[in-house]
C-alpha cells in the first residue's frame, strides 16, 4: 500500500482541475455527484490511512528521496493517528457539506465545486505533511480557497467585508509563519519537522529559537482564532455560505491548533522542554481569555451564524486549555473534544442553513415563533446545544472528561469550572435561540427597546436565499443528523478515551517521531500505564453545565416576567460590558490587524520573559 498516502491530496486536486477545465460542459447535478464521490473517496482513503497508522506513523517520501544517514533532503508525508483522524474529519465534513449544497444553492457554478475540492485537498495535505514548508504551502492553499469561498456571494457587501477581513488578517498570519520558518531554516538548514527538532536539540534555547517559536505560534493562532487574534473569524463565518461554514467551523479553526501543537511537539519540545511550565502558563492564559470572551460574545449574538462562530472561538479556547497542559491525557482529551465538537458544530451550522432555507432569515429575534412547523430542526438545535454542553452520550463529554482528569492531576483543578462556564454560555445561547424561534418564547423583537426598528434595521446580513420554502429537503436533514449521530456514536465507542490518550502520547513523542521519519525505524511503543479516567466528577460537571445553560437560556427568555428591580440591576451591570465588547468587534480590517500585531508582540514579550 505504498501508493495510498499521496492519493487523498492528488485526487481532489485533479478532479478540481477537471471541473474548472470542463466547467461549461458539466451539468449541475453531474458536478454535484462527482464532487460528492470525490469527497467520499478522500474520506475512505483517510480512514484507511488512519487504520494503518495505528502502530507507527506512516512515512512517505515523494519521489523516493529517502533520507541518508538521518539527513532528509526530500519532502515527506508523515501520517500519525492524529493527523489521519483530522484528515478523515475533513473528508467527512466536506462530504456532508456537498450533500447539503445539493439543494441549498439555486444556481452554482462548477467553480464552487472546484474551490471546495481544492480546499479539501489542502486540508488533507496539511494534516498529513511532515515538512514545515509544505505545511505552510497547504496552509496558504486552504486559506486561499477559504477566502474565495467566504466571498463567494459577491453581491452582498457584508460578504465582501468579511472576506476582505479574513484574507488580510490571515495573510498577515501566514507572513508570521513564513518568517518563523525562515529563521528556523537559517538556524538548522532543514525543513523537515523531525530534522529541525533533532538539530535544535543539540543547540541552546536562545532568542532566535524563541522568536521563531513565537512567530509560528502567533501565525497558527491567527488561524485558530485564539483571542486576541480572533477578530476576523466571526465576520468571515457569518457571511460565508453555509456549506463553507460547515468546513470552516468544523475543521479549519482546529487545524490552527493542530499545527501549533504539531510544531511544538516535533520541533520545540526538546529545546524548550525545560521551560514547559512558563509556556503552560501563557497558553492557559490565552485559553481562558478565548473561552470566556468567545462564550460571552456568543451569548450576545442574535445572528445565528455569528452566534455559532463565537461558539467556535469559545470552544477553541477549551481545546487549547486541554492541550496546553502539555501532558498526553490533556492532548488526548483535547483531540477527542476537537473532533466531536467539530462534528456537533458542523451539524448546528447545517441546522442554521435549514432555517435560512425555510424561513429566509437567520436573525433569531426576527424569527421568533416562526419556526413552529419545523420540529426536526428544533430537535437538531436542542440536541446540538446539549452536545456543545458536553452531555454524557456525546463524544464531547469523553473529551472533556479526559481533559478535566488531566487538569486535576496536573494541579489545575480550576480548569473544569472554566469548561463549565464557557460551554454553559455557548449552549445557553443556542438553546435560547432554538426556544425563541421554534417555541415562540421570550419577548417579541424590540420589546425592551426604546426604538423597535433599531434592533432589526440595517442591511440584511447573510441573506442567501430570498423566498421561503414549503418543506425541508431530505438531503439537508440527512447530513445534519448524520454528523450529530457520528458525534454521539464516538461517545459510545468503548475504550476510545484510552485510545485517544495513546494517540496523543505518540503525538508528543518527539524522539519516536524523528526516528520513524529519519531513520525508518519503529519507535518504542509508548508506555502502557494509564490511570483509568474517573467519570464521576465529569458527569457532575456536565450535569452542572446543562443545568446552568438551561437556566441562563430560560432566564433571558422569561426575564420580562421577573420583578423589575433585579432585572434593572442586572441590566445596569450587563449593558456596559456588552456594548464595550461589541464596540471592540468593529469588523474593521485595520482594527483586527492592530489587535493581531499587539497580540503577537504581547505573546512574544511574555514568552521571552518566561522562557529565558
Amino acid at each position, binding site marked *: 500500500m505504498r501508493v495510498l498516502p499521496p492519493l487523498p491530496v492528488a485526487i481532489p486536486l485533479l478532479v478540481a482541475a477537471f471541473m474548472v477545465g470542463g466547467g461549461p460542459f458539466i451539468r449541475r447535478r453531474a458536478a454535484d455527484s462527482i464532487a460528492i464521490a470525490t469527497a467520499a473517496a478522500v474520506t475512505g482513503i483517510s480512514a484507511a490511512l488512519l487504520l494503518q497508522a495505528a502502530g507507527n506513523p506512516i512515512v512517505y517520501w515523494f519521489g523516493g528521496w529517502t533520507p541518508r544517514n538521518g539527513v532528509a533532503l526530500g519532502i515527506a508525508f508523515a501520517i500519525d493517528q492524529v493527523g489521519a483522524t483530522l484528515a478523515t474529519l475533513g473528508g467527512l465534513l466536506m462530504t456532508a457539506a456537498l450533500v447539503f449544497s445539493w439543494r441549498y444553492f439555486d444556481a452554482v457554478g462548477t467553480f464552487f465545486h472546484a474551490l471546495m475540492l481544492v480546499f479539501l485537498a489542502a486540508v488533507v495535505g496539511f494534516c498529513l505533511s511532515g515538512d514545515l*514548508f509544505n505545511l505552510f*504551502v497547504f496552509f*496558504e492553499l486552504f486559506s*486561499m480557497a477559504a*477566502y*474565495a469561498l467566504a*466571498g463567494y456571494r*459577491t*453581491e452582498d*457587501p*457584508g460578504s*465582501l*467585508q*468579511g*472576506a*476582505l477581513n479574513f*484574507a*488580510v488578517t490571515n*495573510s*498577515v498570519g*501566514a*507572513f508570521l509563519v*513564513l*518568517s518563523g*520558518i*525562515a*529563521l528556523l*531554516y*537559517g538556524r538548522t538548514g532543514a*525543513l523537515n519537522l523531525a530534522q529541525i527538532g533533532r538539530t535544535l536539540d543539540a543547540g541552546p534555547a536562545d532568542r532566535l529559537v524563541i522568536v521563531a517559536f513565537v512567530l509560528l505560534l502567533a501565525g497558527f493562532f491567527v488561524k485558530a482564532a485564539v483571542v486576541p487574534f480572533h477578530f476576523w473569524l*466571526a*465576520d468571515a463565518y*457569518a*457571511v460565508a455560505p453555509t456549506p463553507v461554514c460547515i468546513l470552516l467551523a468544523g475543521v479549519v479553526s482546529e487545524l490552527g491548533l493542530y499545527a501549533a501543537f504539531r510544531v511544538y511537539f516535533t520541533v520545540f519540545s526538546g529545546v524548550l522542554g525545560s521551560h514547559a511550565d512558563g509556556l503552560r502558563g501563557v497558553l492557559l492564559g490565552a485559553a481562558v481569555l478565548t473561552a470566556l470572551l468567545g462564550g460571552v460574545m456568543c451569548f*450576545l449574538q442574535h445572528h445565528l451564524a455569528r452566534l455559532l462562530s463565537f461558539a467556535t472561538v469559545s470552544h477553541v479556547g477549551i481545546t487549547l486549555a486541554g492541550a496546553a497542559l502539555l501532558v498526553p491525557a490533556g492532548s488526548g482529551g483535547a483531540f477527542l473534544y476537537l473532533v466531536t465538537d467539530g462534528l456537533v458544530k458542523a451539524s448546528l451550522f447545517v441546522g442554521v442553513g435549514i432555517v435560512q432555507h425555510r424561513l429566509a432569515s437567520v436573525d433569531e429575534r426576527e424569527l421568533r415563533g416562526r419556526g413552529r412547523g419545523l420540529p426536526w430542526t428544533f430537535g437538531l438545535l436542542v440536541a446540538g446545544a446539549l452536545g456543545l454542553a458536553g452531555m454524557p452520550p456525546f463524544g464531547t463529554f469523553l473529551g472533556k472528561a479526559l481533559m478535566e482528569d488531566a487538569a486535576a492531576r496536573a494541579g489545575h483543578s480550576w480548569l473544569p469550572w472554566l469548561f463549565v462556564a464557557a460551554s454553559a454560555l455557548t449552549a445557553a445561547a443556542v438553546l435560547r435561540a432554538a426556544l425563541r424561534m421554534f417555541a415562540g418564547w421570550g419577548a417579541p423583537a424590540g420589546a425592551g427597546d426604546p426604538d423597535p426598528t433599531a434592533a432589526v434595521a*440595517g*442591511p440584511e*446580513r447573510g441573506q442567501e436565499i430570498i423566498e421561503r420554502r414549503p418543506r425541508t429537503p431530505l438531503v439537508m436533514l440527512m447530513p445534519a443528523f448524520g454528523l450529530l449521530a457520528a458525534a454521539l456514536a464516538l461517545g459510545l465507542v468503548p475504550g476510545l478515551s484510552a485510545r485517544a490518550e495513546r494517540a496523543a502520547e505518540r503525538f508528543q513523542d518527539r524522539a519516536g517521531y524523528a526516528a520513524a521519519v529519519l531513520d525508518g525505524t519503529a519507535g518504542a511503543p509508548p508506555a502502557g500505564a494509564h490511570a483509568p479516567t474517573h467519570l464521576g466528577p465529569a458527569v457532575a460537571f456536565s450535569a452542572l453545565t446543562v443545568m446552568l445553560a438551561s437556566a441562563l437560556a430560560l432566564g433571558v427568555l422569561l426575564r420580562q416576567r421577573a420583578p423589575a428591580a433585579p432585572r434593572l440591576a442586572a441590566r445596569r451591570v450587563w449593558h456596559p460590558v456588552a456594548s464595550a465588547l*461589541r*464596540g471592540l*468587534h*468593529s*469588523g*474593521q*480590517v*485595520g482594527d483586527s*490587524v*492592530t489587535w493581531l*500585531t499587539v497580540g503577537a508582540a504581547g505573546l512574544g514579550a511574555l514568552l521571552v520573559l518566561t522562557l529565558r
Partner: protein
Amino acid sequence: MIGLYGIVTSRNLIHMVTCLSVVQSSTYVLLLAVGFRRNATAPIFLDVPVGTRAVDPVVSSLALTDVVVGATVAALLLALAVQVHKRLGTLDPEELRVLRG
C-alpha cells in the same frame, strides 16, 4: 513593519493590498538574507568547478513559492476590492460597516 502600519491606518483598499505586499516582501528579503553567502554565485552548477561557493538554492525556491502565493492573495483581494467599489461606490474600509458587534 511599515507595511503593517500601512494596513492598520489605510483608508483605501488598494493601498491596503499594496501594504500587504510590502509586508510579504519583507519575508522574501529575510529568506534571501538567510541563504546569503559572501562571494558566492547563483546556484547553477552546470559549468563551474566543483566546490564553487553558491547561495543556498532552497531559500530561493521558498521565496519563489511565496511570490506566487503573494501574487494570488493580491489578485484575490484586488478582485474583492473591485466588487466593493461596484456595490458600494467606495474604497474606504471605514465605510464598510455592515458587520459589527
